[in-house]
């Protein structure tokens, strides 16, 4: 029995805001403005209301109403900033989503690589217990504080998704490998304890470490992970129909295209331009759109690259 995707629901806001109309623009220096011009992001989606728990819950509710099902397990990919401390975002999403009967918990600490780790965990949970039929995964993307521009990384947009991983689902999860490196754990941070939310600012401890050391590690690690995943599946790069990754910047797409000698699917650039970076939602949105209207058909292979400055690197091969 294979394990794959049951259904995916992605929620994106109706409202789009041009990046050059974002309120923090007046506080940007010349380098930040230059970054914005070349980032590849034109607009970001902005929800009128909602927090991570309620938005993720809304995505779950929409999915379950449309596709049905009664998930045994619910995994929330941890948000950039929790709605509350001590309380539980995932249980809030469970309540808002009316996900009765599922055991809910969070996968956290992996940044935008969280969804890939979650779907691999979902597969493992289904393999581990034959009585389980379905694992629900959810996530909501909102900015950490009030700023959406994360120089030198990306620009944050709003969104939420829910997906199920089930027995016999398609695309089939064919192969998966993942790595983390704790050495980069503090490269980016928000010192939230020393001031109120409007004062929260994401800091990069070393732009050099980000642009050079992390980039070079990503080159080496993702190359090895891609080779390993393809070897596990017994296929070559030439047999990959589409390669997807998270939507961070135009330069990141070019970097990985050159590094891995795999073209990144045009939908990734389109989503980046339109919606901005949706964190752990990017790969799910890209996969859903490519599967439904990206020119792939049953039996084709789709490679999903996912990494984060935390730092984590994950590669999954899906068979349509």
């Amino acid at each position: 029995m294979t394990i794959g995707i049951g259904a995916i629901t992605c929620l994106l806001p109706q409202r789009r805001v041009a990046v050059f109309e974002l309120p923090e623009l007046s506080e940007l220096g010349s380098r930040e403005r230059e970054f914005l011009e070349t980032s590849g992001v034109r607009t970001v989606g902005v929800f009128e209301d909602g927090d991570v728990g309620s938005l993720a819950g809304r995505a779950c509710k929409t999915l379950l109403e449309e596709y049905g099902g009664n998930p045994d397990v619910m995994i929330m990919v941890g948000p950039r900033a929790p709605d509350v401390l001590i309380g539980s975002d995932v249980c809030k999403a469970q309540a808002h989503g009316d996900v009765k009967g599922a055991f809910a918990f969070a996968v956290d600490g992996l940044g935008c690589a969280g969804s890939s780790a979650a779907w691999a965990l979902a597969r493992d949970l289904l393999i581990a217990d034959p009585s389980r039929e379905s694992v629900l995964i959810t996530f909501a993307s909102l900015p950490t504080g009030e700023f959406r521009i994360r120089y030198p990384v990306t620009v944050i947009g709003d969104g939420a998704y829910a997906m199920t991983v089930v027995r016999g689902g398609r695309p089939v999860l064919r192969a998966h490998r993942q790595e983390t490196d704790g050495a980069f754990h503090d490269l980016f941070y928000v010192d939230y304890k020393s001031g109120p939310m409007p004062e929260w600012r994401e800091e990069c401890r070393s732009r050099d470490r980000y642009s050079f050391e992390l980039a070079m590690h990503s080159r080496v690690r993702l190359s090895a992970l891609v080779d390993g995943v393809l070897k596990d599946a017994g296929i070559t790069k030439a047999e990959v129909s589409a390669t997807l990754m998270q939507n961070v910047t135009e330069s990141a797409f070019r970097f990985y295209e050159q590094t891995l000698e795999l073209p990144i699917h045009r939908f990734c650039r389109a989503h980046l331009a339109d919606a901005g970076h949706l964190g752990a939602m990017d790969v799910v949105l890209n996969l859903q759109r490519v599967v439904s209207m990206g020119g792939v058909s049953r039996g084709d292979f789709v490679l999903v690259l996912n990494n984060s400055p935390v730092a984590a690197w994950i590669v999954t091969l899906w068979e349509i």
Partner: protein
Amino acid sequence: MPESTSEQLTIAMIEQRLLDFLVERTKIEWEVGQDLFESGVLSSLFAMELVVFVEKAFDVSIEREDLALANFRTVRAMTDLVLRLGKAADA
């Protein structure tokens, strides 16, 4: 063609090849002790090109532990790295 380390690359030869590459790619003249990354004009993409160039031009393999900015910050630092990796490969 990559130059084998057994051909006894001199410091001057390595430095010159690196400087030639940098001039060709950036259209800027560089000094061997000049910080390549201080200006902020060098991107991740260029950093990758630099690493690939060093590996191919000098027939060395740069492993994870050597992927530190300090090894690529200047032409002099890259030269030291090439010599060190070349000696390790010859050992």
